[in-house]
């Protein structure tokens, strides 16, 4: 069972190269941007002042600034991951029907349940884990690049960066975010899998249509926005970072930067995993995802024609 699942997951990586290619492309773009940004930056004296300024900051403030850089670097990955997940799930059960290989896959002693499960695990776990690994590599690469540059300008990279940067804290928090996101958005993942299993053509359009039309219909017929609320507002209000309300303090003008940095230094401490896991909306979403996935299994199993 586990060996089969591993083989099925490997299949997803062979078939859907984008799972690796997309984050690697983002990593290359971000690394190149950090490299060329420094090379082409004309005002070297400004950067030198930056180094002096950074040297005068207390360590926790430096840590906060570095954490900010890391979050900035991570955010395009998170965005790209969600786009990738949408396209992956829409393609996952559609591609094998389009190229007619589904009959081959079904000629092997693997159940439809196991196959659909492997697609779900890819979207929910494999893609986030890969994304995290590449984010970590990008962080290290960019920080190394900055270190070299600081060293060339006569600063101390160890003092300015490596002794202060909260790597593990940032990565743990990023992992939590990357895993929580597909869980929170799981109803969409389930819906995309189901569309991918049944649609005869253009999975993207088929999947998008009800998401766009249902809220409009509801508005016209009942003048209410319950569906729109459930689709869009809920999606962006993931209750993972409990301290998020306080986060904006960090960006307040004239705040006591050092004191705030001390208080909110750890991203992990901002996480509210307990609150997230016990949130009923999360579980309702997972049930919806489970129902759609079951429907996808049913369609793959019972439909005769491709």
């Amino acid at each position, binding site marked *: 069972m586990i060996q089969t699942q591993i083989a099925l997951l*490997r299949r997803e990586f062979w078939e859907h190269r984008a799972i690796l290619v997309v984050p690697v492309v983002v990593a290359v773009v971000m690394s190149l941007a950090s490299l060329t940004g420094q090379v082409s930056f004309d005002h070297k004296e400004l950067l030198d002042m930056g180094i002096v300024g950074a040297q005068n900051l207390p360590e926790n403030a430096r840590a906060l600034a570095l954490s900010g850089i890391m979050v900035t670097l991570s955010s395009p990955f998170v965005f790209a991951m969600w786009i990738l997940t949408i396209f992956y799930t829409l393609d996952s059960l559609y591609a094998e029907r389009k190229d007619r*290989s589904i009959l081959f896959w079904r*000629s092997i002693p693997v159940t439809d349940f196991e196959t659909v499960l492997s697609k779900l695990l890819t979207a929910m776990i494999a893609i986030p884990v890969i994304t995290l690994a590449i984010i970590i590599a990008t962080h290290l690469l960019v920080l190394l690049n900055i270190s070299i540059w600081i060293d060339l300008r006569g600063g101390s990279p160890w003092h300015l960066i490596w002794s202060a940067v909260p790597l593990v804290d940032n990565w743990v928090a990023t992992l939590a975010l990357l895993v929580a996101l597909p869980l929170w958005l799981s109803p969409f993942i389930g819906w995309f899998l189901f569309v991918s299993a049944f649609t005869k053509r253009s999975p993207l359009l088929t999947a998008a249509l009800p998401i766009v039309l249902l809220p409009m219909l509801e508005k016209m017929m009942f003048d209410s926005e319950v569906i729109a609320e459930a689709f869009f507002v809920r999606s962006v209000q993931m209750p993972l970072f409990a301290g998020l309300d306080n986060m904006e303090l960090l960006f307040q003008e004239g705040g006591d930067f050092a004191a705030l940095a001390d208080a909110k230094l750890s991203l992990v401490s901002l996480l509210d995993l307990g609150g997230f896991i016990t949130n009923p909306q999360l579980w309702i979403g997972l049930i919806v995802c489970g129902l759609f996935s079951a429907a996808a299994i049913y369609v793959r199993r019972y439909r005769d024609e491709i």
Partner: protein
Amino acid sequence: MTSLVSARNVSKSFGALRAVDDVSFDIGKGRIMGLIGPNGAGKTTLLKAVLGLTDCQGSLSVLGLDPFRQRRELMQNICFIADVAVLPRWIKVSQLLDFLQSVHPNFSRDRAEELLAQTNIKKNSKVRELSKGMVTQLHLSIITAIDAKLLVLDEPTIGLDIIFRKEFYGNLLRDYFDEERTIIITTHQVEEIENLLTDVMFINDGRIVLDTTMEDLPEQYVELMVSPDNADKARQFNPFYERDVFGKQVMTFEGVSREQLQGLGDLRAPDIADLFVAKVKGEAA
């Protein structure tokens, strides 16, 4: 004879269309069964039911299993080639071997590599880079390396040239088949598999119109080429089908002994293609 596939009153409808209509048959171990029928006769539907790819009414048992409900167990002992194009085009030969090795308990990688070594197929090629004939070779090699009790071939050589087709069947008999294994095969090129078969089954409009062994066939059916003056005499034996060949009548008889027809013309056992036409057209008449 132990029955490997046993069907009793099997039916499958799509809306009003009865694709398979109350079909019963048995296929024993070590047989090669040819399933012959025109397009839309229900061959593929019947094979899908045997493979557990579609649900059906009636009772169907394959290797003692209910194919639709126990598909996973069934697929450990069954292989099929449904069409040459079904191997995924993006997969590398080596990936295919890796995959099968991990999910198929009866797959022997060594055997597959041994068979592939006899071909021009490279292990790091992707399926999309191979010619159609090579894809079929690859598929057959894989399937031969699976220690399966039943092999189902649905038009396995469609779109291949004659050399590949001959080679395909040659390899099938040499590398795959033995008395422990059973094959069900459908094809339009009946002549090519005629010598392979031990059993033959005709299906038309979802019904079985003939189900017999190749050994019994010449005893059950006889074809008589008769000159016009003997035609009426021959018709007394109730041929179920008549056709005109170069001014002579060719009549096909069922259950009429050769002795009775002796002297009326040239007697011979009908080949499968002719017998099929006779059966289908004769029933319609």
